[in-house]
């Protein structure tokens, strides 16, 4: 009996978690602007694709996410490997600290940094500052995911490789890295997802010409509910959700 009750409860919670997004998606196809269903229409999607500011922001977001996730994945993977070989408590604690720092604090600290850099190095806010910021906050995520994967890796495989003539670097490249690759890719996808969606930090360090998708959405949402936002939201959820599923599959 308890099992049944628990199962029904779970259904309720799943509904709570998923229905709001489904509702958003459903009403993105609503031909009417209001919250009453009038008919199926793709109008809002068309409007979204025709909005040049939106498209430009999306492209910015993609570029930023690709570059930042790539950099974060490389730096994070080798860092996780280094930590796995022998712990470096100062670095670990510092990374952990950066993880628990509230986003708003990270945002303003990076803004302060870039302001300082502007004053002394004449570096403006722009795509590059956003990319740096994204690398900063996604690094710890990558390290965690790759570390988790490394914990399932048998260290004697590296010893075997060295025993057979491979140097430490060769052992890493030919034995360890291929083995942990699913974890590395998953970490990369995670960094990508986190980067695409970030609003708080990005809004603080983006320049005038480097608006990202979340920033545009936020401004639109601030002005009030609009079916165009529904449409964009649905696209985002589907794409990011798909990426997460792919990431899960890879780690299997």
């Amino acid at each position: 009996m308890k099992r049944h009750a628990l199962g029904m409860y779970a259904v309720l919670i799943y509904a709570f978690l998923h229905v709001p997004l489904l509702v958003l998606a459903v009403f993105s196809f609503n031909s009417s602007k209001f919250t009453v269903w009038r008919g199926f229409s793709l109008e809002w999607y068309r409007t979204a694709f025709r909005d040049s500011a939106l498209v430009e922001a999306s492209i910015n977001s993609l570029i930023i996410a690709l570059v930042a996730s790539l950099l974060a994945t490389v730096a994070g993977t080798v860092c996780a490997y280094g930590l796995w070989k022998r712990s470096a408590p100062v670095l670990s604690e510092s990374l952990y600290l950066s993880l628990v720092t509230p986003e708003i604090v990270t945002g303003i600290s990076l803004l302060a940094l870039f302001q300082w850099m502007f004053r002394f190095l004449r570096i403006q806010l722009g795509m590059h500052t956003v990319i740096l910021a994204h690398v900063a906050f996604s690094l710890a995520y990558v390290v965690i995911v790759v570390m988790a994967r490394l914990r399932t890796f048998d260290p004697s495989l590296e010893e075997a490789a060295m025993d057979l003539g491979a140097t430490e670097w060769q052992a890493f490249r030919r034995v360890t890295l291929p083995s942990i690759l699913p974890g590395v890719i998953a970490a990369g996808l995670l960094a990508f997802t986190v980067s695409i969606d970030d609003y708080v930090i990005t809004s603080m360090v983006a320049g005038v010409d480097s608006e990202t998708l979340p920033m545009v959405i936020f401004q639109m949402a601030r002005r009030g509910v609009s079916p165009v936002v529904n449409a964009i939201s649905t696209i985002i959820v589907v794409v990011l959700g798909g990426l997460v599923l792919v990431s899960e599959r890879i780690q299997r």
Partner: protein
Amino acid sequence: MESVLELREVSKHYPTHRAVDGVSLSIERGALYGLLGPSGCGKTTTLRLVAGFDSPTAGDILLNGSSLVSLKPYERNVNTVFQSYALFPHMTVRGNIEFGLKQRKAPVNDLDARVQRVVDLVQLTGKELRMPAELSGGEKQRVALARSLVLAPEVLLLDEPLSALDPNLRKQVRSELKALQRRTGITFVIVTHDQEEALSMCDRIAVMHQGKVEQIGSPEDIYLRPRTRFVAEFLGAMNWFKDIGVRPESTRVAKTGTVPAVVESSMFLGNCVQVRARTADGVSLVAEIPREENHFKPGDSVGLSWNPADEMRFPQEVN
């Protein structure tokens, strides 16, 4: 007597304990050498020192007369078969075996021929394209062996080679390993805690205890003429009569004998009869007697005796 591997006063000290303490031994070329001892005695650490995964805190390790100690694992002509086999899971059997040769940038024709030869040697012909996950325990071991043998090392180190196998497989693999060693002529050094394994396979055995070597000798030497109490007890069961030790299979039971005792139990084990008896001082003794003599019952008063030639005497030892 050519010594291919020599350890001179090798020590590995940790802050908390001495894993290896002043170990000296000399291994003859072409021998099947055993490092035997209980877990924690330092045998695996010694192996790792020879392989190069750890460096000794004192002493020297010589391969064909030249010191190994400053060389990295990939610079030594010594290979290891790991206890878990450590096969590379993302490579085929062939990929695993080729690995070392590829590191050395061996020419392709030569490589293929050598790999094929060793695959046939360990009887894995036809399975070259399988992945490690698809192999049985015995097959995995053969890949690990092939992977190391193809590099023709001066010494092959094997860490507990039989422990990961099914118990019923072990006897068969034991003789296969010995045959393999004879056929290749490569010096094998085996680490094991199983005295039966060591006695049956090895030409020469070093018994280790608490980081030190207690005795080195042939299987017969260490079994029949143990030099310390530890070696005697580790190699097999022992009956102790003060400073004199006698193996159960050398102990006779009769109506009267040197040591009077009362039978506690008598079990027919098939190939022999095992009689447990207790002396007046409360000492428990075990005798293994011919199966025809299965007529003792609990409570019987008997006498235990033995051939003086089978005695092992140990003067009072300091622990």
